[in-house]
């Protein structure tokens, strides 16, 4: 008992004040890209050739955040002449096409599906489905339950049964072997329900794009309401997306 109290005192209160107060991530963190649209097309081409994800659109001078793993390879070309990554982690979008960006994203809080805010703004219960992938997305979603993020204080929880859930949070590129289980889980969630695609895998196949063993695009199976880019998304990216999309 003494040890429990002594540990409790030593640990103190650790929960972040975000979103009431901003939070600054370390300078090496790669968040929302800043794109120089005046960049020499030859350099853009060089970035596109280096990109392992084929995420750079040369003509449009845009990056597809739904494909990008934020590896930072392009930012090392000519010291970031075409692209640099900011520390802005707020990158969730309601529409797939908005992820193809020249450096700015629409305000997620003003998305078109406002009825979700009325339905789930005070309580949101999600069922997580890991449909392939590498478990990094799952790990950094799990982390939202730790004292630093403490997701429950916002009325958002991950639940054990799809019957108790308002929606599903999907990670992974949807392997052929998980397709049936994913669809069964989706079916088991009562209407009205939401679908969240987390990480570049369920958006575009992520690092596995082109594999014959995956479906790659979650939206081709079930309608996606919220996209959270990253490889994996930083826990704060997920937290921001959930709060902006569902809270008033």
């Amino acid at each position, binding site marked *: 008992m003494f040890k429990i109290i002594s540990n409790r005192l030593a640990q103190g209160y650790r929960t972040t004040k975000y979103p009431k107060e901003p939070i600054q991530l370390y300078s090496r963190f790669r968040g929302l890209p800043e794109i120089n649209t005046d960049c020499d097309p030859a350099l853009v081409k060089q970035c596109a050739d280096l990109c392992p994800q084929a995420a750079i659109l040369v003509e449009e001078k845009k990056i597809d955040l739904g494909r990008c793993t934020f590896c930072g390879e392009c930012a090392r070309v000519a010291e970031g002449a075409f692209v640099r990554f900011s520390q802005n982690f707020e990158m969730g979008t309601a529409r797939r096409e908005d992820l193809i960006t020249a450096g700015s994203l629409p305000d997620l809080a003003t998305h078109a599906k406002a009825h979700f805010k009325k339905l789930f703004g005070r309580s949101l219960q999600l069922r997580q489905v*890991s449909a392939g992938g*590498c*478990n990094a997305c799952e790990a950094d979603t799990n*982390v939202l339950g730790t004292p630093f993020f403490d997701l429950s204080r916002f009325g958002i929880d*991950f639940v054990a049964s799809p019957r108790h859930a308002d929606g599903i949070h999907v990670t992974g590129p949807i*392997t052929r*072997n998980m397709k049936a289980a994913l669809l069964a889980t989706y079916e088991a969630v009562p209407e009205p329900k939401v679908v969240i695609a987390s990480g570049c895998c369920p958006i575009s196949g992520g690092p596995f794009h082109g594999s014959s063993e995956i479906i790659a695009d979650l939206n081709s199976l079930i309608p996606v309401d919220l996209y959270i880019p990253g490889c994996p998304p930083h826990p704060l990216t997920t937290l921001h997306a959930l709060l902006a999309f569902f809270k008033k």
Partner: protein
Amino acid sequence: MDKLLQISNGEVVPRQRIPQVDFARFFRILTDFVANNGYIVHFFAYIDDGRSKLLAVVRNSNLFILGTEVNGEFPSLTLTIGTKFHLFEREIAEQYGIRPAGHPWLKMVRYHANATGRPDVFGNEYRVDIPGKYDFFQVQGEGIHEVAVGPVHAGIIEPGHFRFQCAGEEVLNLEIQLGYQHRGIERMLTTVPQNRLPVICEAIAGDTTIGHNLCCCQAIEALAGLKVVAGARTARTIALELERIANHIGDLGALSGDVAFNPPAAYFGRIRGEFLNLLLVLCGNRFGKGLIRPGGITQALTGEQRDIIQAKILELRPEIEHVCDLLFSAHTVLARFEYTGTVGRKVADELGLVGYCGRASGLEYDVREFFPTECYADLPPNANKVTNGDVYSRAMVRSEEIMHSLTLIEMLLKRPEQPHRPVVMAENHLAPESLVVTLNEGWRGEVSHCLLTDADGGIARYKVKDPSFHNWTGLAMALRNQEISDFPLCNKSFNLSYCGFDL
């Protein structure tokens, strides 16, 4: 024995030097080797000029290779030599349609069609989604009941199916069926351009990003003749140790949560995040994605990052000791940890367990000590005091390794700063007709990649092995005659990778 070719970790071996013997000889040599403290690192099939070949990479205190040719079928080594071969043989059957005749439990591993167009060994029809046509091991009798769990679980975890045969609360047999995360990684690695290799290897198992990508990059470096400077080696070693610490701390917290002792679960959950954030300080990603590329690292380890890591370790070490003391001295915790899920040394040895699962059962194998890469040849090895093979031992080994890893990082940070330039991904010319095997002690144990190149320097075969491939059977054995309610605890004490297994 004389035919085995000794190789070293990360050495480029011309393919014509791979000793090729007839199957009878292959069988005899491996029988002898495995009977004398020999273990399997890889055992896989590949196609060489239209012919099916098998390659075994085996280890005792040294590393050896041996090859043979087969023709659609070979007598099962599992049947006569032992269980160390059983999953490898099932994998060969699934990947290449080659039947290990007489295999005692010949069942698919990951559920996918083979690469050769041979008829499927298991009679599965892969156009049909999982579940396919396969039986589970069943216990018959009055009062025997079966419990099926997964693939979708009641938490934020990866998919897998567990089938328990129970008499009341007692588990008589657990069969673990994986494959749900199969992404076709090995085949992809032979077809994609080189700049995708590290990104894919970082996603074999996200919690082993550094371990797997290090194996990949060391292999490319060997085949392309790239030199890695000392400063980059230091950073890569620190990254591998940070990955180990973060995962072990997370698991100690989760183990505590599984026995409903919440304070350490909360504290370790938070402290794990601190270490992930140190990986972010190194490279901008909490899992170390994007840090290591062939030839070095992408962002230099400068004084600024060294100071941040040093200060954090100074702050966190006493906290970790404090919480460990709370966890390991609580009698409610000890009552659940001790004598639960025991895998004795004999069983661990027969299965060839690796990493902390092996060390907790008394198998003193650590790649960092046996086949050192990066900076490990100059660093002191770890030793484990509690090796009874139960949940308590696996937890204690983790706590000992955390402290050891903290010391290693501090030693590395004391070295004078060695300047090194960041590397940019480039297309490298790889040595043609060559073989390379790389091993690293990832946080779960022996991670190993084996590459075979063709006449043009293209990658003809890329074999990946996560330590989980050895250890899942250990979990199944740990559950024998345990109460089914202890499954989550046993499972967490092993904490194996589903995606690393499924590839």
